[in-house]
């Protein structure tokens, strides 16, 4: 350090930059390279991905085109090729369209219900107060309890002689059947709401922390009340993370197998025969593998719009949900 100042002080302009040779332009988290690209480092992981993900997916497409059931399973490579007959059968019979409708209604409805709950929860713990850490942990508990435990516990609560009906009895309301018949769908929405609202809460909380403090200060100087501040300052800033949260939530609820499977058993009542359950029953209880594969691929067609929206909302280089 002293050397450099001494030299410049003496007026001897030997070298302008005192820190050695110019640095490589690519730095930090952005992709860049120094010399060579040892891509072979990714060979083991990529090969394994190919083996356990890509190959099975390709195989699933093929299975969807052949007549594969428990009789042809032993010689599955020789299963008769029937083209799109499985797809036709799935669309014409088997309740696929009903299941798609139930799954769509369930996933959209649950997302719509958990969004305000999650946002409200995040707002309650954003500002520090005594005991905030405990409240934050409590909010997380329903979300982190394994789905199968959630389903088993609620299955018991919702029994005809269970805790919910006995509590309703205390206030004089006649409880009904929550797990079969028309109420089953609403029970599923209720249980999934309980289990999943903390997802929106966490995403909102993460989004709130990225809003700079001076935004709030500016709003305070302008004399806004809390509702105006929320409506015109906070929520617009949360658009990115919330879009991501709601899309992901819809996708996950649509594909949720464990909760309805453990809550209602299989085969499930028609009202809650969501797509993953229907595919499961078709594939592994009636052993129509070809039909099941065709149904799964048709499920992908339904999911493609939210999936594309999701991939567009995520910033690949940072993995967060901020707007581009």
């Amino acid at each position, binding site marked *: 350090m002293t050397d450099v100042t001494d030299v410049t002080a003496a007026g001897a302009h030997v070298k302008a930059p005192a820190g050695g040779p110019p640095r490589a332009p690519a730095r930090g988290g952005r*992709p860049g390279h120094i010399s060579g690209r040892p891509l072979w480092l990714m060979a083991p*992981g990529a090969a394994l991905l190919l083996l356990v993900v890509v190959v099975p997916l390709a195989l*699933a497409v093929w299975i969807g085109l052949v007549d594969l059931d428990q009789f042809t399973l032993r010689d599955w490579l020789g299963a008769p090729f029937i083209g799109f007959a499985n797809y036709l059968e799935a669309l014409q019979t088997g309740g696929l369209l009903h299941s798609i409708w139930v799954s769509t209604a369930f996933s959209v409805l649950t997302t719509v219900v958990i969004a305000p709950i999650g946002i409200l929860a995040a707002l309650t713990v954003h500002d520090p107060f005594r005991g905030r850490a405990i409240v934050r942990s409590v909010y*997380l508990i329903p979300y982190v309890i394994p789905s199968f435990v959630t389903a088993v516990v609620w299955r*018991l609560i919702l029994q005809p002689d269970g*805790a919910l009906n006995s509590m309703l009895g205390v206030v004089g309301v006649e409880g009904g059947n929550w797990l079969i018949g028309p109420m089953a769908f609403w029970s599923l929405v209720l249980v999934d709401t309980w289990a999943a609202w903390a997802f929106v809460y966490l995403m909102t909380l993460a989004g709130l922390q990225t809003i700079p403090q001076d935004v709030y200060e500016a709003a305070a100087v302008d004399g806004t009340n809390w509702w105006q501040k929320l409506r015109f300052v906070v929520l617009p800033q949360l658009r990115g993370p919330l879009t991501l949260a709601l899309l*992901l939530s819809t996708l996950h609820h649509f*594909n949720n197998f464990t909760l309805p499977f453990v809550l209602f058993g299989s085969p499930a009542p028609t009202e809650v025969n969501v797509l993953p359950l229907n595919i499961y029953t078709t594939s592994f209880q009636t052993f129509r593998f070809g039909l099941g594969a065709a149904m799964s691929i048709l499920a992908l067609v339904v999911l493609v719009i939210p999936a594309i929206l999701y991939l567009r909302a995520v910033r690949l280089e940072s993995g967060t949900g901020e707007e581009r």
Partner: protein
Amino acid sequence: MLPRPLQVVSVVLLCAFALAPVAFMLISSVSPDVAVASGDLFPDELAFGNYVELWSTLQLANGLANSLVVSLSAAVLATAFAVGTAYCLVRFTFVGRRSFLRSLLGLQTIPSALLLLPLFVVFFSVDSYLGIQLVGTRTGMVITYLTFALPFATWVMVTYLRTIPLSLEEAGLIDGLTRFGVLWRIVVPLAFPGMVVATIFSFLLGWNDVLFASILSSPQTRTAAMQLSAFAQSQEGGAIPLYGQLMGASVVCAVPVVVLYLVFQRYLVGGLTSGGVKG
């Protein structure tokens, strides 16, 4: 952010909503079976014996051991394989890099049955042609758990490795390390916390799985998740459903997971925005 009264009311209501079923589970787990079955929330006597009896009724110890072995093996394997892939995805540009990253995320949106179906068919034929049994074994389950653990662990590692500065690797190269040496001696030690998080999250995905286990496990290799679900369904219609023990077993399955999450709460948000933790 919110007016004080609204904040207080909201916190109380949300905590009550979150905790009511948990309280039900805890109280029922120490209640006599008959009391739980009849919806009696405040039984006259407690039955702590549930926690003793459930181990023999459900063979839960066996199930927990299976869950632990299968999920942990898949999680450790997935993380070990993920590091190299994630490193290349973060440090180098190559054709297909962005598509690779997109696919990792896109995999979360496909129904798991789409992967289970072909793997079941392949396992079945490996058994009949090569005589290697995979259906019903722990090995078979580890392979299927990799289908979700590997893409997930890779994505978590991608997000973590981005935070490691390049200059340390440059220093290593200048000091004469090979490219593999850089990965092994510099990147892996620095990324170790990220690897722990990737392992834990992948482990929890396996611990929570019911779909794959319901098809690929045999009575000996049943995971705790599978045992609990099957036990819950078998108790209905019985003379005296063992609901007290069922809730005890639920507590036993849930507690390790809840503790893990609360300990690693700080990392939870990071794991979440990476997706993968399916509701």
